[in-house]
């Protein structure tokens, strides 16, 4: 039995290729039933996100050649054979474990430290588990991988510090105001970054979003999308004293918010803190408003410098994560290498011998009067019992040629005797 991985990701394939290899939910179900029907693949999990498409599988000894697996991969995705081949990578055994652990820790992601991948891996695994496409090896591999992903996020800073301008702006808002649900935000002008920032704020539960735009229809359109209120640009500028977060990204060539006007606004709002996010170029807000009490202004350069710092910090954290991954790979590998017949039999015998030794010892203390001769006989007798009991299962296990049966026996044996709980952790 072997762990095998075939797949492509943003590292190897351009976006148009990745688009061809996306598995929809229904396609994924079909693919899994197909995998089940094929004779060479024992277990399979299909991981499909917008940046990667991967198939984790265990195969029997006769199917260790990558050719047929690649063919399956094409077939699953409904693509002509060979189309994806130049972009595919293959991994085996230890390298599969390492790859999955790195993926789930987001080290292999386009944005290192991103959060979604852990959920995506869990979902992919659950789908295979529910359709009974996983077994001894992949269950253990994925359970462990999810634990590693969780550990990495809890014990390192890989996920802290946003690495996009809009999420940095929202993170700042959360560190300025106690509870965003009590605050109103205003988006002035349009533009991708501004809209995304507004969208994140709405996601974070901001109380209300006001959209102000030179063209009212555009404002109405955006307001409708984010369940906000549309106003004209003129009205919007009058309403600033009532909002706590302003995202400004107009195409105006002159600042729309000067220092004197801002001073008036602060007077009107009795110095309640206000967070101004200026992502327009040229700038919409006079930078001198910074001198006013309780005005916090971040422009594009400020946000970008935070993004750069955070990205730098994540790089440093990635080294720690690599170390965690390596430790966990070693651990799982110790288990994985024991998984074939010989080590399992050895473990079973070792376990039986431990029990025998312990019980004989106990009997000897109770029967202090036994002579040395008696003791030898008892040792011999108990050894014979153990050997006879284990003889048949050992022979059966060695002689099972069908790999699926053999894995089943192996799994049962390890499970029934609790071999994975002893000495492998």
């Amino acid at each position, binding site marked *: 039995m072997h762990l095998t991985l075939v797949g492509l990701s943003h590292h190897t394939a351009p976006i148009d290729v990745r688009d061809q290899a996306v598995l929809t939910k229904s396609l994924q179900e079909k693919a899994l039933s197909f995998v089940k029907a094929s004779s060479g693949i024992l277990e399979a999990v299909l991981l499909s996100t917008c940046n990667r498409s991967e198939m984790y599988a265990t195969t029997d000894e006769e199917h260790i050649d990558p050719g047929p697996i690649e063919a399956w991969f094409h077939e699953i995705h409904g693509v002509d054979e060979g189309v994806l081949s130049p972009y595919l990578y293959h991994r085996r055994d230890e390298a599969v474990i390492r790859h999955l652990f790195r993926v789930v820790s987001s080290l292999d992601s386009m944005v290192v430290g991103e959060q979604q991948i852990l959920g995506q891996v869990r979902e992919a695994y659950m789908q295979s588990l529910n359709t009974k496409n996983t077994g001894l090896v992949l269950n253990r591999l994925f359970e462990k991988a999810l634990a590693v992903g969780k550990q990495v996020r*809890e014990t390192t800073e890989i996920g802290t*510090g946003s690495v996009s301008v809009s999420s940095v702006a929202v993170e700042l808002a*959360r560190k300025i105001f106690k509870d965003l649900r009590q605050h109103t935000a205003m988006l002035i002008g349009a533009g991708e970054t501004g809209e995304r920032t507004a969208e994140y704020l709405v996601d974070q539960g901001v109380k209300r979003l006001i959209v102000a735009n030179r063209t009212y229809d555009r404002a109405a359109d955006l307001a409708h999308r984010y369940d906000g209120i549309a106003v004209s640009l003129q009205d919007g500028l009058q309403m600033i004293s009532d909002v706590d977060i302003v995202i400004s990204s107009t195409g105006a060539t002159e600042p729309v918010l000067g220092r004197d006007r801002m001073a008036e606004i602060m007077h009107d709002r009795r*110095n309640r803190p206000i967070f101004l996010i200026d992502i327009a170029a040229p700038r919409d807000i006079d930078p001198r408003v910074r001198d006013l*009490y309780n005005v916090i202004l971040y422009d594009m350069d400020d946000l970008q410098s*935070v993004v750069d710092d955070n990205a730098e910090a994540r790089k440093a954290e990635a080294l720690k994560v690599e170390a965690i991954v390596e430790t966990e790979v070693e651990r799982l590998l110790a288990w994985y290498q024991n998984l074939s017949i010989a080590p399992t039999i050895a473990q079973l015998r070792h376990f039986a011998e431990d029990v025998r030794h312990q019980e004989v010892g106990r009997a000897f203390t109770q029967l202090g009067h036994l002579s040395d001769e008696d003791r030898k006989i008892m040792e011999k007798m108990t050894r014979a019992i153990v050997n006879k009991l284990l003889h048949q299962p050992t022979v059966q296990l060695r002689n099972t040629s069908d790999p699926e049966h053999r894995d089943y026996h192996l799994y049962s044996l390890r499970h029934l005797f609790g071999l994975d709980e002893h000495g492998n952790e």
Partner: protein
Amino acid sequence: MGIYILHGMILVGYAVATVVYFRHFWTKHPGSGIYASLFLVFALACHSAFLIARAVESSHAPFVGLHESMSFFAWLIAVVYLFLERRFHDRSLGVFVLPLVLAAQTVSTVLMSPVDPLPPLLQSPWFNFHVTASFLAYAAFSFTFITGLLYVMQMYYIHHRRVGLVFSRLPALGMLDEMNLKATLIGWVFLSAGIATGIWWATAAWDSITPWLLDPKVLCVMLTWVIYTCQLVTRYTAGWQGERAAIISMAGFASVLLAYLGAGLWTNLHIFD
């Protein structure tokens, strides 16, 4: 002998809790937060036992002299902190509060003294009320200092675009300001009550007002009251919330320290031999 062991347990408890709070702050390790709180609860339990034992032994409330009052002060801060931690679901303040508790308790232990009988002047129910109210005010003002300091730090990080680890661990400005306001209000009410009972009591004990009004400790307490009153007035009239309120609180706490420690060195009235 038992009392030394108890003192040791209190100190070790607070010291370990401080270390674990630091560890929790830097590593964000999820388990360590609960351990930090558990060590704090353990230290507090020992500490409460000590205060009760002391009160029983001396048959007066345990805040006569520096040894007892410092210890009582440390205990109050720890209790208030634990309450806030539960209330706001936030352990990040622990890193800043626990060293204060540890320091106060250490000073108290160093100054350990045998139980003194209560001077006749203090054998009055007013004494317990006056001192308890004053100490509650001091403990609340300690929190205005800590939240004020953190507010200034957090604002510095935000203004200077230094949004790293400490920034991500500290609570939001809005939350710090709210905690600061609550602590100021509580402190102000208790300090006013403490001053009022003090005046009532003093007018009964002395015929003229000059001897106690010119007492350095009384003057410092008055100054403290004026500073915190200013904080509240400017907050509500001129909108001086946030950083300015934070800075005024820090000044107010400096005045508390002066009243509590500094004035003790040259006052006559508040040392009752």
